[in-house]
């Protein structure tokens, strides 16, 4: 599903953000991408979401390749790869339901189908009762759930999350991660960047890929294979 082959990524003079990184996340898998700040976690997610092209190597996501993808194919890829941010990125002037509907509207969902689909998505993240609340009226955990519902709106094959629990307390974090597991159980590949060691320790069955200074220094899948 996701394949990084010998990826090097440099940003001008600041040196390598990633240095010869190769990894493979299979369809339906769930994995933590961990490491200290600046280790290259966000860069990996950005490359998978094709917000940037690698300096060297090739990123493949489903049938898309970083080497061949054209600008006008990007929207199609983005609909297949959902993205969740640490800071939620909800539109403050819109309610929870409208924030989710926004993603459906701007990807061309017929108007008549939007309402029922939004209800279903909010129910899926456990927020059916908060549909009419504005982001400022929701807790951090609830806001992140709205953001997750929005990311799921286009029925992505892959869900990428960049420190999704970084702004949440422990209880909310656990709830959000449980939600990711449920989403994964329904077949979506999930890759979650986090430096929350506690969370990782609580889920020993989830694959862990650790980055350090732009290199993969640990991959539990490789350990298990060995």
């Amino acid at each position: 599903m996701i394949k990084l082959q010998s990826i090097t990524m440099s940003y001008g003079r600041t040196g390598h953000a990633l240095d010869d990184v190769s990894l493979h996340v299979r369809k339906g898998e769930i994995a933590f991408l961990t490491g200290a700040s600046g280790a290259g976690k966000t860069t990996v997610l950005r490359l998978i979401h094709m917000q940037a092209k690698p300096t060297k190597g090739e990123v493949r996501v489903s049938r898309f390749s970083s080497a061949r993808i054209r600008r006008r194919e990007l929207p199609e890829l983005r609909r297949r790869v959902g993205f969740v941010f640490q800071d939620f990125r909800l539109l403050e002037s819109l309610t929870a339901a409208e924030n989710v509907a926004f993603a459906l509207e701007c990807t061309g969902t017929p108007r008549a189908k939007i309402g029922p689909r939004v209800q279903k998505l909010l129910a899926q993240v456990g927020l059916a009762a908060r549909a009419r609340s504005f982001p400022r009226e929701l807790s951090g955990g609830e806001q992140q759930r709205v953001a997750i519902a929005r990311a799921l709106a286009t029925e992505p094959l892959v869900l990428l999350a960049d420190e999704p629990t970084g702004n949440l307390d422990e209880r909310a974090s656990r709830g959000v991660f449980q939600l990711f597991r449920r989403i994964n159980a329904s077949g979506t590949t999930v890759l979650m960047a986090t430096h929350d060691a506690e969370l990782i320790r609580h889920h020993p069955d989830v694959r862990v890929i650790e980055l350090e200074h732009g290199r993969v220094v640990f991959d539990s899948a490789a350990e298990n294979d060995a």
Partner: protein
Amino acid sequence: MRSVREALAGFGRAPLLGGLSVAAIGVSLLIVGLFAVAGHNVDRALSGVESRVEVVAYLRDDVDEELVGLATAEIEAYPEVAGVTYVSKVEALYRASQEMTEFSDVFSDLEVNPLPASLVVQLASDSRTPDAAERVADRVEGYDFVEEVRYGREWVDKLYRLRRIVGGGALLLGGSFAIGAVLLIGIAVRMAVLARRREISIMKTVGATEAYIRRPFLVEGLVTGLFGGLLATALTYGAYRIVDRTLLPLEWVPEWWMAVGLLFAALLGMLAAARAVRRELRNIDVY
């Protein structure tokens, strides 16, 4: 629908800039409009004069009338020619005495008729141009019995030059103001894009197409252009009425000219927006 709503919201966000953009397009097209009214009226004057453009060939006194008859038939067959009239010496003198009554004494005292006979060549309506007149004049001058050929060359040339100046002036002045308008609309659209940076970033994250993201900005440009065009039409009409009432009577331009002007204004606004938005959207992505 969303595009229209958001375009209007764009105006609400920066009313001063939106107003300036409308005014800039309005002024640039006002200039084009004034030149259009001037051009239209020069055209009308020109077609009035054109119908009087004729080539006159003065004949030698010793000319054989039979030969002139043959030549007349030949000249009438030219594609540029509508008709040829033979004016004899006697007729010329009669006309001169009729047209210049103050000299009637002089004419009646003459012992010898000094006026030559002539062929007056009327040009076909689609050939009343300096080039055609000159072509006909050159051919007619080729006959041995023709002493001299005259046509209102200077007049025709002057009018045509005036029309070219009017056209060129409109293009130059209107064009430079239009460039100003394009830049102003560009700034307005760029500000609108920046104000919606967050939304656009989310749209790109979830996979909205570029066309979808661009559309409201293009509509904003189109509406700006259209308002500018309407303003220009109103201002031009006002100026026309003032001149028509106080200085000299004019005719208002044909309606389809206004329609073309409005269409042009709307397109100008949209193209200016397209140019700005394409640049600006490249700078916005997910992070």
